[in-house]
């Protein structure tokens, strides 16, 4: 992946220049910054927010000490833009499932793109988009990532605080199960037989779905050492493979760990282009 040889040196140790930009996304992750209602003004007093189109008419194209990037790379312009932004940034932080793994729109990576365009738009020739929606790290080097669809306000607060204080942010990479058990939630997989991706999904949500009586649907993407095939192998004992593929084929479908299970289970739901599934998979 093309990474600039040199990065700008942080401009000020005390007031970092912060930018927030978006690629293909729903804006929910950058909105999370505005959702830090209690700390937003205090943070704004300690940093210079130089680029954040959703919140301010002040604009900047860099340099950035910290740049939060939301969204996946889905158009030729975005592919060019992210390389320029990387070159102007000291610490590039991808925020959310779109930026870290492609997002829900990466489901189109399994399809014939032209067919999809003509399905939504009467005249697809006006619409510029790439055949795939891909994570930022496929294009430039990334320094930190905040997972989630959307990201967690607590993790965003922790990251900003850690940067300001000069410590490593506490962003655990373990499974959702760990937080689920600490919270004393009754396991919805074992006690209810629900499909729950918690064991292979990174923590950060506070075991939200199990706390609300649902199986985890993987919006924080694969955890470290995600044994997604191991979980799929258990699930498939009493479900058809297509149902297993369905469960993994959501907001982090294009992450390598989840993608492998989807491919091995015959691909995501809906009409897909079989040619997108690698031959090695035993679908």
């Amino acid at each position, binding site marked *: 992946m093309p990474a600039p040889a040199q990065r700008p040196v942080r401009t000020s140790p005390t007031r970092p220049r912060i930018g927030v930009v*978006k690629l*293909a*996304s*729903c*804006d*929910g*992750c*950058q*909105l*999370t910054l*505005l*959702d830090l*209602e*209690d700390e937003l*003004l205090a943070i*704004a007093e300690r940093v210079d*927010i130089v680029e954040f*189109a*959703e*919140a*301010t*008419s*002040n*604009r900047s194209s860099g340099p950035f000490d910290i740049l939060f990037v939301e*969204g996946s790379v*889905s158009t030729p312009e*975005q592919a060019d833009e992210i390389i320029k932004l990387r070159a102007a940034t000291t610490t590039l932080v991808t925020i959310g499932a779109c930026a870290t793994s492609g997002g*829900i*729109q990466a*489901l*189109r990576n399994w399809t014939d793109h032209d067919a*999809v*365009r003509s*399905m*939504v*738009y*009467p*005249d697809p020739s*006006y*619409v510029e*988009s790439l055949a795939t*929606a891909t994570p930022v790290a496929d294009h430039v080097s990334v320094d930190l990532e905040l997972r989630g*669809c*959307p990201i967690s*306000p607590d993790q965003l607060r922790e990251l900003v605080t850690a940067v300001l204080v000069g410590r490593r942010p506490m962003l655990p990479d373990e499974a959702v199960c760990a937080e689920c058990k600490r919270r004393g939630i009754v396991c919805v997989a074992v006690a209810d037989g629900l499909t729950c991706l918690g064991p292979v999904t990174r923590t950060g*949500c506070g075991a*939200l*779905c199990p*706390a*609300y*009586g*649902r199986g985890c*649907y993987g*919006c924080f993407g694969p955890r470290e050492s995600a044994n997604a095939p191991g979980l799929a192998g258990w699930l498939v004992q009493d479900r058809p493979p297509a149902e297993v593929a*369905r469960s993994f084929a*959501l*907001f982090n479908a294009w992450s390598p760990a989840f993608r492998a299970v989807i491919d091995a289970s015959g691909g995501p*739901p*809906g*009409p897909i282009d079989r040619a997108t599934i690698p031959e090695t998979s035993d679908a």
Partner: protein
Amino acid sequence: MHDAVIAPGGTDLTIDVRNLTRVEGEGSLHLRVRDGMVESAHLEIFEAPRYFERLVVGRTMDEVIDIVARICGICPVAYQMTAVHAAEAAFGVTVDPATVALRRLLYCGEWIESHALHLYLLHLPDLLGKPSALDLVRDHRAVVEGGLRLKRAGNAIVARIGGRAIHPVSVRVGGFSRVLTRDEIGSLRDDLVEAQRLADATIDLVADLRPPTFRREARLVALRSPDDYPMNHGRIVADDGLDIPVDAWESMFVERQVPWSHALQALGRDGRPYQLGPAARVTLDADRLHPRATAALRRLDLGDRIAREPHWSFAARAVELVHAVAEAIDIVDAYRPPTEASVPWQPRAGSAAWATEAPRGLLFQRFELDDAGHVVNARIVPPTSQNQAAIEADLAAFAPTILDRPRDEATHLLEQLIRSYDPCISCATHFLDLQVEVLP
């Protein structure tokens, strides 16, 4: 600094604002004036398309509820509410009255969060002449803090019912994923009482605001229900007498593609643009407002301006803030949990259309479903797509009245007009870049 170019010379002019700010998503304004006449006014939406209509094909309606939320981070509840009601219409599901109440409370939460965000953080800087709400803090700290607290109260409702403020997880076909206890809902009350004070203060705030002057007649469209202010259900009505069920949307409105936009534009069958959103609702459904909101609207005495002057949209939002908070308190107080989180249901083949009132206006969805209840075909028409043509018509009408102003100021006024619609561009592309061009 705006990336704006205004051509030199008399009355030929191009205004080109790339990357409109303080709107949700990416778009531009492109305005071309020749001989003092507006030749074209385009709201260009270059937000990358994400093909949601295709992404939901093959999915169950419970999955659709999770997926369509991702169209918009500001109004995910609107997408979920429309989809869940469409699903229940398709499958013939009647939900528990407590579920009906809780869904309305959830929607109130999103209205409060979205309206407070737009009014205080996105629109107010225009009205007070600052680039952002963060720049308002020096002179108006208490105002900004109040707006943030109001927004927080809305988020707290969504997070309590749905687990988190953005992309909540609990909405399911037939009800919710679990029963919310009376204590869980009741504990929202203290913050809502505070929010009620802040909503009242918002009325005081907007009473003193003086936006730019621009008056026109627009076709206003909103839902209207027999018994309450429109959110989750109603018939589609307009100030010209239109009154149709929601599933007749396609018979009265059309979507068209324009070369300058990734968002399809919606128009009336007669080719006329129409306006959705708080101004339309406050105008068409004034008699359905909560008594506290009715009193606020009467105190402001801005009903006529809300209906005819798009720059005054914030007043409609302020009234709806009062409404949503008051109604939320009523629902919290009356809440009794259902015995089961969700009623049982079976999928069946069919087609169902539904519309609800998103914070930005009427949101229409239609799904064709197969025997397993999987989506075969989908149509999603967000409010911003529908408002797009109205915004362009307003730009074309407003521009000639301000072309004598210094260019920066003219550009800013045009941007402000767009912002007054609270366009949600991520929604629409599934949308903004402002460009004004004056030709030699």
